[in-house]
């Protein structure tokens, strides 16, 4: 019989304890540095070597290059770069294999949208996704010479 009263006392005391919940949508959770979030893409560094598209286990990366507009220079420049986040498993292989670190991981993870079409992220979107980049990658200068 006394156990019931004890239990009631515990729950009553619990009411004054601080919350253990996060105010998630209002205050986004900071992720650890090695978290694999949505990629950031820097078109200036890309040499169109296609390695990211080839290693991608789910074939979610598609890219096209074109001839360098400067006739003096050799090689290609990136024309379109798309990641399909319907199938992307955020495995980090594309960023591991990239020789110039043109594609790197960020800590951003907000991908909820109302339409599946919106999950198809293009070059401009990935370039604009330039916050919370992994610190080891942000040693490299971002466009504009900024450090992350």
């Amino acid at each position: 019989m006394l156990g019931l009263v004890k239990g009631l006392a515990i729950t009553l005391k619990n009411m004054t304890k601080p919350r253990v919940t996060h105010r998630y949508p209002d205050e986004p959770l900071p992720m650890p540095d090695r978290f694999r979030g949505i990629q950031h893409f820097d078109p200036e560094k890309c040499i169109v070597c296609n390695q990211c598209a080839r290693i991608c286990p789910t074939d979610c990366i598609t890219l096209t290059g074109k001839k360098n507009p400067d006739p003096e220079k050799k090689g290609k420049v990136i024309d379109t770069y798309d990641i399909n986040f319907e199938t992307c498993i955020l495995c980090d292989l594309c960023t591991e294999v990239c020789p110039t670190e043109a594609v790197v991981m960020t800590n951003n993870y907000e991908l909820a949208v109302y339409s599946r079409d919106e999950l198809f992220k293009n070059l401009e979107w990935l370039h604009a996704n330039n916050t919370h980049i992994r610190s080891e990658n942000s040693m490299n200068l971002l466009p504009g010479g900024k450090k992350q």
Partner: protein
Amino acid sequence: MQVSMVLGPVLLMLVVLLFVTYAILFERKVLGWIQNRPGPNRVGPWGLLQTVADVLKLLIKEDVVPRKADASLFKFAPVIAFVPAFAVLAVIPFTDTLKFSDFAVGLLYYMAISSITIIGIMAGSWASNNKYALLGGMRSAAQMISYEIPLVMSVVGIIMTVGSLNLEEIVRAQKDVWFIFPQFVGFIVFLIASVSELNRTPFDLPEAESELVAGYFVEYSGFRFAFFMLAEYVYVFAMASLTTVLFLGGWNAPFGLTFIPPIIWFAVKFVAIVFFLFWLRGTMPRIRVDQLMQFAWKVLLPLAIFNIFLTALFKELPVIGNWY
């Protein structure tokens, strides 16, 4: 026929609906606090419109009547369950002026009318033409009938002391000493049995979702389901009022603090009981069905009878008899 005869019940209905709306919110908030989380806080400031949004969602849901169900009874059952819940409020004296009727047998009326809800639940579960609903309905009926007996027995001590079934006279008899003190055993039995009558944790077997897929209202959706829920919460209102009236002195002020209006005193005691119900829900796990039945018949009923015996004995003793 006076205007107040029509307006009064309408006003009471609005008050009860407001109570139900915010009791549900308050319950979820209390459960949240107990579990160290904020509870509903998305809809409206402090989540104040959460229940409104929930009810709106219930109302726009598809109203399903199973093809092989007894359609007319299926539709009528929520009404049978709800009407007694509201009708019992007629005899509750909120203060000595704010009341609807001065019944000579108010307590009897309450106990008799409130048991009609069981018929609504049984009718609903049977008319669903679903084995699980029927099982859930049978269990509900067994539980509610079993606990009605200790519930009524536990207030016999009060009736013996006051010598009346009139709820107003019962309140007036508590001017000096509330019945919670001389009738403590009766109070405990009444409280436990009333929690069971309300189908609330730890006695919420009628909606034991793990074994019964939600019990007697499996087949109910939308508005009709809302009616069962409404009946349940209106009973919380009614039972908390009755507990206040029977054991906590109704509108009587303790320690001579009569400058605070009686309706406030009633509300304070009422809210304390309602909070206790929510607090209990945050504490207790659900009880097993065989334990439930054994508890009613082997513990509560003997205790209630013992209380009657004790009251009769104390009534005859010289000094203590003044309290009885």
